[in-house]
């Protein structure tokens, strides 16, 4: 089973990478960029077969390791 986890910074948390990229896009001439926030994607392959329990397992991975819940949010999606 394949799953995709997306981890993004919470609102209000500083995002130096996003800021720098925004600046760089602007200097490349992309004037219409209002903001950029950078996050992470994890594409996970699991041997589990039940989507329900897999989702639970993935959420637990996020809580325990993949996201720093002080500053990050996460979403979990089974994709195949």
């Amino acid at each position, binding site marked *: 089973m394949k799953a995709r986890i997306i981890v993004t910074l919470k609102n209000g948390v500083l995002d130096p990478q996003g800021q720098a*990229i925004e*600046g*760089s896009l602007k200097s490349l001439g992309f004037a219409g960029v209002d903001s950029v926030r950078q996050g992470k994607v994890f594409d996970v392959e699991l041997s589990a077969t039940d989507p329900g329990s897999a989702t639970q397992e993935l959420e637990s991975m996020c809580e325990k390791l993949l996201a720093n819940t002080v500053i990050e949010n996460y979403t979990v999606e089974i994709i195949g």
Partner: protein
Amino acid sequence: MTLRNDIEITPELVADHGLKPEEYQKILDLIGREPTFTELGIFSAMWNEHCSYKSSKKWLRTLPTSGPRVIQGPGENAGVVDIGDGQAIVFKMESHNHPSFIEPYQGAATGVGGILRDVFTMGARPVAAMNALRFGEPDHEKTRHLVSGVVAGVGGYGNSFGVPTVGGEVQFDRRYNGNILVNAFAAGLADTDKIFYSKAKGVGLPVVYLGAKTGRDGVGGATMASAEFGDDIDEKRPTVQVGDPFTEKRLLEACLELMATGAVIAIQDMGAAGLTCSAVEMGAKGDLGIELDLDTVPVREERMTAYEMMLSESQERMLMVLHPEKEAEARAIFEKWGLDFATVGKTTDDLRFRVFFEGEEVANLPIKELGDEAPEYDRPWVEPAKPAPLGELPHMDVADALLGLIGSANHASRRWVYEQYDTLIQGNSLQTPGGDAGVIRVEGHAQKALAFSSDVNPHYCEADPFEGGKQAVTECWRNLVATGAEPLAATDNLNFGNPERPEIMGQIVMAIKGIGEACRALDFPIVSGNVSLYNETNGQGILPTPTIAGVGLIEDRAKSARNAFAAEGQPILLVGAPAIWGSHMGQSAYLRDLFGRNEGPPPAVNLDHEKKAGQFVLGLIREGIATAVHDLSDGGLALGLAEMAIKGGLGATVNQLNDIDPVPTFFGEDQGRYLVTVNLDPQGDEMRALWKRAEAAGLFAPWIGVTGGDALKLGEARAISVEQLQEAYEGWFPGYMGATVN
């Protein structure tokens, strides 16, 4: 992807593998049959320019490679030089030019990874790194991106691995627009009685694979052309190698731990053409055969073929021959560090290189001939024409010229670059980048230190490869001397264009001759090196760039020197000067960077004079007379003085000679000169004694000025404040790079 071994060998396929028809014929004659597809891959790897040195070997053999301190010259993973007290310095330089142009971060990172591996494969713990980088002109659309990525990649790998970067070079020139140069150097310390070599010994012993798993990284373009892609392949397979310094660091610790157990008989890292080159080299050197069973090779991708496994350039891998009774102990060490450990074959006595995969024999080749019978060419070459003499010298105000140079792409501070490198890790750095040479103390030794420098002036080399080759060696040697080090030995990285063009081959030949002559005269043998050819785009070659990296020994680090003005009121001497202080303007930075003129012959190097000047300067440093030392190179006296002022935060007042054009005085690039400040009374006896000594040595060491104040005043030119110099010097790089994102 299915890539079968029964694939038909067509002339196109042979050509795709970079083999000429006559080379293919040689293969047929050698093995008496048509090679299998895997065998063709093996030949192409072993017989390409990179592994076989087929165009350069004839000339490389002419280099001096031995000396009283040389323990191992070229022919192993790195050169080994005795530094006394049972210790040796192990070092080499290698290029990663093409990969860095394709993917600057990973290309540079894996270049650093590769050279570090060469060093610790020999049992040495890496203690210093350098990187010599050459980029296209600053205005070229790709340059910023390449600078940003390469520097981040060099740092990303070296910093994580934990080796201090102590020096290097960065230059810009239009001639590197389509072909940048990334040359990485590493040096490590080892005990002289615990050096490890790649020569296998003993029959029937396990051949062990260590480190990271094998993927399709770097499997060449030839494969792509000849592969049958299955339906599931929707993207062109990347051939870019990705570096993993975390694995390399663990590999280092595991290897050193393993070596200490006495289990290792032979070891070879997997660099270019990974498993193929490493296995063949270990066997051939030991007069043994090697048998590999590819089904046991740790892989990270599915359905890898024998061909791919043999040619993969996945990083962070090693091959060893082990004492069988120590295998379990060895495995435990690698498992502790979380690395793969697999017995993938054995040594045999039949002098064959046999490879098995899925129950089939996919290669069976004569192992020695794979290396020994590689083509070797005596390529036609023509001696490059000597440049026309310099026309009329254009004039410019001396102060304006100095400010122009010091704030320009090729002479401004490289701080923006080296602050991205960890220069302090290991706690032994005595001189970090920015000086004439990087200096580290020998850990655990009360007095010793080692100095490192990397140099070449490609413009000199283009105008006259012979003098340019000499000059590169000499400048490196001088930089070591300027810190108080006795130069021990060097490594070279010869970067040139297409050797099949006689003019380029002529550059290669003449540069090697020049390097050889200088190394012989200066007792500065070449103990390792690397050749990178075919550096060109659209028929335009790069500037000939034979980078020389040298190592020097400081016996007592309390008696070493730096290039910063140390105190007010100290006389400045120009040791090794000609009668009029400076004269040679051909190929000077003044002409090139201020007037856009690449003209005239480069300065000639008088090796006898260099030796005398070097010995004299070393004497002043060791006796504690010299308070600051800086060798002069491009930009001449003016740039040298400005650098000493900026580093020391202290000005100076310098004279000029009556009735003599100040431009050659201040911007001439005559060789064999050092700026030295001394703590002597210029009117006193000690100073007179110093001049007597210089005279006896056949040297002129005029007193040209005195340190002090907050401005640099060159002859009649207006004084420039040190602050203004500093701003120009430090401003260029950050201003140029701005807020780039790697």
